């Protein structure tokens, strides 16, 4: 794999065509330029810059989770004709913070028969890769932590670390429910990872690049009409189903099916370790929704290209004001698209029944995997036949 990736990077750089899209906000170069004005070396300016987007993204991820938890509670209440949280803050918006603080001061119980080290390591291994995957989520041309060459592939490889953590926590709990939950979680994750990777592969083929920024750039030539969802409708559905399964959301929440397994691999967990699982699963949901919007719904792209609007208004796309507006609109669009998908995921959770494990595995292996392979080959064939529409 390593030599293959090394061979591939020159191809990636070759594939980065100078786009028609304007460069947009580049905060790093402005920041570096400002610091160098004070006499810093470029390397020092870079080092000072590095932690800023990371902390910003971390805060954004946590706020995203809080909003999602609140949305989940409010929407589930609306589905069941209840009111939901209403006392903590206006409309109960502070409820998730109250939940988090409560979990922070809860006692941490490690069962006597459990393996203490693995029991602690499990939730950490679940939450770290999920946070780390935010490295490649772009909110604008330069509004991401790092535009690494392997881009979306990094997310795919990181997401396969999570089942190890789930299996670890299930097995180390020394509890029958946890063991079954952990095994189910691992089986489910690995079954849906392959169709997911194949669906991403079709997108990568159309963009000629693994970088998430290039993937979005490739979709934003003509606004909403050039989004990948029109060229990859099957891939979009495969990706969305697999993303729900990877996040263990209903209808695929077998690992923690509460009627059968109490809480699956989380049964023995309390306090902050439980909170880490909770945090991990919601960060993963928001991340998956963001990646769907990046891969299929044009990422930060506005339905009508912002460059067209700017030129219609007689403004240069490179003017500072236009760049700030474009950048902000880009962030809002990314988040808006992602939250539309989060809303669908929440509605699905409260309106669909759970599938059985044999149905789950049948769907993954006997339906989604062949369909994903066919989708990939059809994309390759179409790219050969109509290169203009499928990324050259």
């Amino acid at each position: 794999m390593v030599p293959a990736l090394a061979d591939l990077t020159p191809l990636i750089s070759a594939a980065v065509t100078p786009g028609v899209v304007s460069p947009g906000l580049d905060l790093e170069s402005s920041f570096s330029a400002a610091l160098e004005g004070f006499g810093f070396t470029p390397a020092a300016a870079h080092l000072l810059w590095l932690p800023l987007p990371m902390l910003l993204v971390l805060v954004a991820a946590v706020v995203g989770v809080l909003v999602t938890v609140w949305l989940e509670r409010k929407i589930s209440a609306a589905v069941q004709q209840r009111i939901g949280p209403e006392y903590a803050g206006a409309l109960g918006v502070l409820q998730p913070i109250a939940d988090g603080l409560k979990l922070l001061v809860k006692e941490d119980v490690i069962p006597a028969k459990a393996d203490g080290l693995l029991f602690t390591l499990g939730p950490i291994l679940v939450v770290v890769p999920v946070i780390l995957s935010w490295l490649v989520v772009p909110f604008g041309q330069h509004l991401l932590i790092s535009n690494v060459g392997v881009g979306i592939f990094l997310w795919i490889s990181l997401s396969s670390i999570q089942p190890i953590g789930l299996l670890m926590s299930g097995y180390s709990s020394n509890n029958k429910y946890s063991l079954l939950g952990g095994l189910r979680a691992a089986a489910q994750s690995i079954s849906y990872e392959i169709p997911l990777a194949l669906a991403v592969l079709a997108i990568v083929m159309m963009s000629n690049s693994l970088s998430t920024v290039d993937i979005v750039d490739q979709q934003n030539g003509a606004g909403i009409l050039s989004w990948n969802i029109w060229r990859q409708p099957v891939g979009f559905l495969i990706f969305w189903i697999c993303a729900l399964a990877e996040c263990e959301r209903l209808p695929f929440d077998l690992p923690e099916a509460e009627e059968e397994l109490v809480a699956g691999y989380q049964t023995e967990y309390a306090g902050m370790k439980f909170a880490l699982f909770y945090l991990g699963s919601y960060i993963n949901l928001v991340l998956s929704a963001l990646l769907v919007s990046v891969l299929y719904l044009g990422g930060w792209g506005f339905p009508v290209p912002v460059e067209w609007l700017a030129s219609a208004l007689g403004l240069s796309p490179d003017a500072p004001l236009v760049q700030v507006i474009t950048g902000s609109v880009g962030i809002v669009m990314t988040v808006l698209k992602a939250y539309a998908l989060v809303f669908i995921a929440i509605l699905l959770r409260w309106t669909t029944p759970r599938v059985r494990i044999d149905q789950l595995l049948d769907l993954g292996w006997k339906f989604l995997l062949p369909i994903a392979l066919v989708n990939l080959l059809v994309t390759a064939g179409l790219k050969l036949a109509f290169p203009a529409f499928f990324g050259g």
Partner: protein
Amino acid sequence: MFVLSGYDAFLGFLLISAAVPVLALVSNKVLSPRSQAGERQLTYESGMEPIGGAWIQFNIRYYMFALVFVIFDVETVFLYPWAVAFHTLGLLAFIEALIFIAILVVALAYAWRKGALEWS
């Protein structure tokens, strides 16, 4: 060195994201009450005294799926360079990938036929 451009951020973010659970667990340790008395540490089993441990033999099916997974996961890893370079490779690469995928489809059909994908 081109391969490693941007990975200093990866390393930094790895440290920051690893610090999140560590800080959370440490602050939990400091803030939470501690009492390790008796029943609390018992394994949960729907209110009963737990019968035996859980480190037991489990269904062989999980191994079958793991084995099939390894085959197809390696396949997708091999296909990634192909997909990125596809626009420069053309028809021949398409036919090669077709043969490669066909071999794996035969493997899938074999596993399917042998019942490796059946749950019960």
